[in-house]
């Protein structure tokens, strides 16, 4: 980290245009256009590249991390959502939701090596080098596929629950945790036998997980509930719940394990949450509709896939520790003001609709995207 408390590091000047307040310094390094609906990101530290799963484009964008530009696009199956890189074999894996497969890419040649069939609608994956295993959450299949990272053979298909997706692994306890979006639950398995050893009911829309093994804790994002659950991994119970920004969907643990980063799809921000105090330390603005998030272990920079902007943000979190005051979300300047005039096409009729169609009525404009 480059700054201590409120003091700014001159190497990273923080201007008024790029901060929320004086207690939450951050720096935007780059925002790089990629394919449509980018979701998962994996960083190749040795080659200084990032691989970005662009689910609506059915390809992986390869980003040069020195030039900050896309240098290749690799075709995958339909709707690659999550992605991971196994350093030992140099293989990149994508969970191709609409093809019910995992595409395997050679990170050196940037060519597809093979595709592995898995369960219905794979939407999350995690690889564990110590176990030489790749775990894939199959949302429609309600299962978890376990694949050998070296032989690429499926060694087990384990029953999970509807919406199985994100997977977390605690190597020290030998626990594999499958998070189920639709069921709003998590299944806990013994990593050796795949026997279920526990189950938790969680908040609505559970969709991401991060593990801090030395504390025996897991952080699980509940997107619709708008919270992060803290789970005691020894007791397998929820011990705390923290609110974040609007519609949190992505999570990663910082390399120092003192904080986690949570993307807020509904707010275009990245929340920094303290691991020990479970408080929100800051919110860093990123692109529109952020989702996947990873940290580059080389320099600690944070990569965020912005589904709405079709970009990847690279930002630096300059907080050395918890700031002296909590960050307060700024209210929209539009509150209390008149809605500006609009004229938009009605999807059902093709007609232009304007404010006048709802004159003298109370109503809600719900901005949404189908991804």
């Amino acid at each position: 980290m480059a700054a201590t408390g409120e003091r700014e590091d001159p190497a990273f000047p923080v201007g008024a245009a790029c901060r929320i307040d004086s207690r939450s310094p951050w720096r935007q390094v780059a925002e790089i256009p990629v394919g449509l609906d980018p979701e998962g990101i994996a960083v190749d530290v040795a080659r200084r590249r990032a691989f970005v799963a662009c689910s609506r484009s059915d390809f992986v964008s390869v980003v040069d991390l020195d030039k900050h530009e896309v240098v290749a696009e690799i075709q995958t199956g339909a709707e690659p959502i999550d992605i991971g890189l196994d350093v030992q074999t140099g293989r990149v894996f994508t969970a191709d939701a609409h093809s019910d497969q995992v595409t395997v890419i050679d990170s050196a040649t940037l060519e597809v090596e093979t595709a592995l069939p898995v369960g219905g609608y794979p939407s999350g994956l995690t690889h564990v080098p110590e176990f030489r295993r790749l775990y894939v959450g199959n949302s429609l299949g309600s299962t978890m596929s376990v694949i050998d990272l070296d032989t690429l053979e499926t060694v087990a298909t384990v029953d999970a629950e509807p919406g199985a997706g994100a997977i977390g692994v605690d190597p020290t306890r030998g626990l594999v945790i499958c998070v189920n979006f639709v069921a709003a639950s998590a299944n806990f398995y013994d990593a050796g036998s795949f026997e279920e050893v526990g189950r938790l009911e969680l908040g609505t829309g559970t969709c991401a997980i991060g593990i801090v093994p030395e504390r025996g804790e897991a952080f699980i994002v509940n997107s619709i509930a708008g919270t992060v659950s803290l789970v005691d991994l020894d007791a397998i119970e929820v011990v705390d719940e923290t609110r974040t920004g609007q519609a949190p969907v992505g999570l990663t643990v910082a390399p120092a394990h003192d904080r986690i980063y949570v993307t807020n799809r509904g707010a275009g921000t990245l929340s920094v949450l303290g691991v020990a105090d479970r408080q929100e330390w800051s919110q860093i603005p990123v692109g529109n509709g952020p989702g996947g998030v990873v940290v580059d272990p080389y320099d600690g920079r944070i990569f965020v896939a912005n589904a709405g902007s079709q970009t990847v943000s690279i930002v630096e979190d300059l907080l050395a520790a918890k700031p002296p005051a909590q960050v307060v979300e700024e209210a929209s300047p539009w509150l209390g003001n008149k809605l500006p005039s609009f004229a938009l096409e009605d999807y059902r009729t093709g007609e232009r609709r304007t404010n006048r169609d709802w004159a003298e009525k109370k109503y809600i404009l719900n901005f949404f995207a189908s991804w």
Partner: protein
Amino acid sequence: MREGARSGLEVVLVDIWEGTEPRPEVERFCEMWGIKGPILLDPAGELATTLGVRGVPTNVVVDSDGTIRAFGAARLDELEQAIDDLYGRA
């Protein structure tokens, strides 16, 4: 959205940021979730940009005189509170 419908408020969906032709995507989305009611298309996100929308979902609660009373309100409890406030309920 369920809360909005329950209160008698009309909920107007605005589709943004598809990055591609929105109609097939909206059709698939509506079928999947059984969505009825008006849907407006803002493919370039012009209204969203004007209002400073930076994520989805974002709810903008509009009073009968056109005044914006709540902005964001992605969580159910926030939306319930915004609707209660709109109707002057304690």
